[in-house]
């Protein structure tokens, strides 16, 4: 009888453990994150209403493939001062989550490129609109991303005309206007291939 009791006890514990393991496995979601090869990052857990002390769950370099408990996280890059180290939200659910993070350059680094790129951007603009561009000039040229996107105000020389906005992209070392024609307000439904955050920033250039 004693032996049977021990066997029954072990079975109960084993079944309980198995049940716990299954429910634990069910609470995990598969995550794949890719980052720049040289960059490090941390995955931090968003602690609900209290953002004061986020808990670091994982640290990794270049990429992370694994399982995390379902919930809300943020990926915080540590790539040095040349990069924009803003965090990216990560929601882990029942379906596998894939996140590809391309770090933009920092504002300071982008600003340092502007003077070297302005002439080429102006040339691309003047070549595209030879007849009209004489009466307009590009102002507030600003670089985005990794210096491969640019936005500018298209400002008329004459009074009482509208200032327009334009976005340029550098492909194969050549600048090209991608919002053709320049407009008063650039819309994401018209240009779904331009990152929304760039359109938003160019629309508030002033």
């Amino acid at each position, binding site marked *: 009888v004693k032996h049977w009791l021990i066997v029954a006890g072990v079975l109960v514990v084993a079944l309980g453990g198995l049940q716990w393991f299954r429910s634990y496995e069910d609470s995990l979601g598969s995550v794949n994150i890719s980052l720049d090869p040289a960059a490090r990052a941390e995955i931090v857990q968003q602690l609900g209403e209290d953002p004061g002390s986020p808990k670091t769950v994982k640290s990794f370099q270049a990429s992370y493939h694994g399982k995390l408990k379902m919930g809300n996280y943020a990926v915080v890059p540590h790539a040095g001062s040349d990069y924009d180290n803003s965090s990216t939200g990560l929601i882990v659910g029942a379906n596998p989550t894939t996140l590809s993070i391309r770090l933009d350059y920092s504002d300071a680094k982008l600003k340092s490129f502007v003077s070297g790129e302005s002439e080429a951007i102006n040339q691309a603009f003047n070549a595209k609109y*030879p007849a009209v*561009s004489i009466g307009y000039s590009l102002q507030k040229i600003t670089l985005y991303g990794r210096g491969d996107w640019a936005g500018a105000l298209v400002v008329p020389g004459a009074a009482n005309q509208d200032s*327009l906005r334009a976005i340029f992209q550098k492909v194969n070392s050549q600048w090209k206007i991608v919002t053709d*024609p320049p407009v008063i*307000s650039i*819309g*994401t439904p*018209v240009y779904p291939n331009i990152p*929304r955050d760039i359109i938003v920033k160019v629309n508030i250039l002033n």
Partner: protein
Amino acid sequence: LIPGAVSDAAKKYQQDPKIQNLIQEYSGKIFGSASQEVSQKYPLVAMLPHLDLDFRIDYGKGVRSKDTVSSTAIYIRAFSPAARREAISWIRQQGYDPSDYEIVFSNFTNPFSSGASQ
């Protein structure tokens, strides 16, 4: 739903600014009642039409939008650059980002539309 002009006389009639405005308004009404998806994707439309002293904002079918499911544009009628800026500011004041919409300025001829080289 709105018949296209075929004859020269009809085309001329439709080019009349008053008729254009009527067509635009009517399109917006038909379009608005037809699509609940539009108001979910483009919530600004729930506040339209909006009339101000210097501008009017309506909505209707997109012109250059790549949104194939619920193509929508915001139509702003304003007669000066300052009024057009005011209209954009009004959209921001309602809590919406103009970047999320195709905005068509009815009384504005874009000088760059015909000035591009190939």
